[in-house]
């Protein structure tokens, strides 16, 4: 299964003013940090160390973060979990 096979959504579809700039998995957080891939950063969003980044997932969970490291295609962010919110996605189903 490729991500292209199931991907039709974008972070831009999230409701409200807070839009996802990069996908992350909030189950994969270690010492307040997680990683994602550059390809999971929304088109047009430039990443650099120190940049604030709104990260989220396809459940509609969102969180403020700051880019802390770039290693090739790997983007590490420090999450501010105090800002973690969840947009109601009762319509969300597995494709």
């Amino acid at each position, binding site marked *: 299964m490729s991500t292209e096979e199931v991907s039709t959504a974008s972070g831009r579809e999230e409701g409200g003013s807070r839009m996802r700039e990069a996908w992350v*998995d909030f189950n994969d957080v270690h010492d307040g940090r997680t990683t994602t891939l550059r390809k999971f950063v929304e088109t047009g969003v430039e990443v650099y160390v120190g940049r604030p980044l709104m990260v989220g*997932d396809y459940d509609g969970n969102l969180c403020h973060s700051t880019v802390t490291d770039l290693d090739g295609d790997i983007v590490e962010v420090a999450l501010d979990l105090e800002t973690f919110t969840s947009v109601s996605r009762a319509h969300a189903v597995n494709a």
Partner: protein
Amino acid sequence: MGVLVKKLPIRMGYEITNDALVVRGGRLHLLDIALALEKCRSVYGVLGFSVRAAEVPDVAALCRLDPPVPHPEICRTTVGQLRGVPGVNLLPTFAAPHYTVVLPDSDRMTVELVIDAFSPPERNPTRSRSTGGGSGGVR
């Protein structure tokens, strides 16, 4: 994409039992799992995704373990149910209670078999009702 593989930190010396509880925060959205698999493969060379697991009395105790599950909803299963999916293994990775569910391939059928090994989404018992996330029950 270049070579990105890092060493996946595996905890040694302890074998979790089949009765142990497993929780993944969120609704197990297929796309979230697909991206998690791709990230894990790209970074660690392992086709897997993150869960937490421990021999605890109930799901609330598992969700409370540090770091607490932030998601308003969770899906649950047991180690034994995951090991019952052909080719699936559970690796103790990073700091407890983190585990990585390792899949034999990323075929859609395999991914859906793993997702089906979990319960439907249910409310995170450690989160208040005001934190949003829908009513659960349907993925």
